[in-house]
């Protein structure tokens, strides 16, 4: 019988197995992500936490097991449908290298909206609002290379949030930043996600970053030990 908590989960991984050649990365990994929560995925290097995130986001397909978003099985979707889902319902923040260097920060944030068919003026207006909320309005006209690491990550967060996704996947979003900048990113990021109601799946090996989450799940040897969800 399904757990009563599984019913109200927005995103679930059920008994995922995935191997890279002879190396098992996930072994019976299960996880539930609820709407609006910040969930930290913790665990040592090579434990499978990034692989699990990629499966949850539909970037990787597990060898067996299911990932469901809003009740829909990701593996039963066509590639095109999964891509559309990633564009419209999911947002992504990585450690670095995610902004287009040839575009200004404003254009970078506006890009997901433009790809979704929003007009240039409207997209840039929304992008400017998000840059302001992430306290990086001053780099709007600059290229990513001209912004500091912390500013660049806040631009990346703005870009992840601009389409108002329901889940944001963040893989070591502060991994390349010092403590102060890392904390500023996390404070603004989690506050903004909370305001929009987006769930955040946060991969981190840093406890101080995980402390911005509502609960944590520990990944070890491809298995997940999940802290109980309390509404």
């Amino acid at each position: 019988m399904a757990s009563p908590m599984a019913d109200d989960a927005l995103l679930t991984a059920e008994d995922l197995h995935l191997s890279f050649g002879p190396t098992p990365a996930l072994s019976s990994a299960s996880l539930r992500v609820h709407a609006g929560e910040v969930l930290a995925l913790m665990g040592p290097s090579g434990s499978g936490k990034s692989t699990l995130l990629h499966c949850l986001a539909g970037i990787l397909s597990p060898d067996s097991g299911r990932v469901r978003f809003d009740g829909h099985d990701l593996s039963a979707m066509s590639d095109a449908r999964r891509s559309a889902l990633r564009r419209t319902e999911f947002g992504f923040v990585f450690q670095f290298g995610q902004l287009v260097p040839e575009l200004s920060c404003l254009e970078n944030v506006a890009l997901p909206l433009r790809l979704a068919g929003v007009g240039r003026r409207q997209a840039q207006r929304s992008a400017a609002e998000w840059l302001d909320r992430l306290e990086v309005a001053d780099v709007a006209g600059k290229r990513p290379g001209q912004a500091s690491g912390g500013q660049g990550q806040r631009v990346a967060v703005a870009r992840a949030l601009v389409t108002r996704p329901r889940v944001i996947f963040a893989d070591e979003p502060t991994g390349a930043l010092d403590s102060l900048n890392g904390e500023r990113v996390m404070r603004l990021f989690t506050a903004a996600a909370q305001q929009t109601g987006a769930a955040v799946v946060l991969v981190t090996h840093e406890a101080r970053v995980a402390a911005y989450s509502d609960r944590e799940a520990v990944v070890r040897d491809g298995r997940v030990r999940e802290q109980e969800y309390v509404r």
Partner: protein
Amino acid sequence: MCIVIGMSVGFALLGLLESGPRHGYDLKRFYDERFGHGRALHYGQVYSTLARLLKNGLVEVESEPGDGPERKRYAITSAGVTDVAGWLAQPEKPEPYLQSTLYTKVVLALLTGRDAADLLDGQRAEHLRLMRELTRRKSDGDLADQLICDHALFHLEADLRWLELTAARLDQLADQVRP
């Protein structure tokens, strides 16, 4: 969170008196504002500490007309200033934590065939719970709150790193501790 405990209260009060003489009440308020952080000193503790400092010649009393402790103004003596300077110049002893309760628990869990990984995960959850609380308090607080919470957060983070490392070495540790 109180950041000054035990014997340090005496030094802290003494140090605060270096900026000028104060009544006991005023001194307590001054202390609470800077170091109390939700846990104010009791008046009894303030006056018993001042009595000790007085007895040791580290403060002196400038009495004003009237009765009661509130009529006394405390001033630091030159011996008191020397004590404060010595206390400030003395580095705090880093705690090696070698005999921590947690280490004892892990070893005992391994020795008795219990799940030591479970124990470590439980501890991690407890540490993170406190870290979340401190992170929230930090977000709502002023600079003093932020710095005090950061101090606690860095210590908790160090513990968590130890928990991770120990979790990764449990098999090795089990081989060593089991007879």
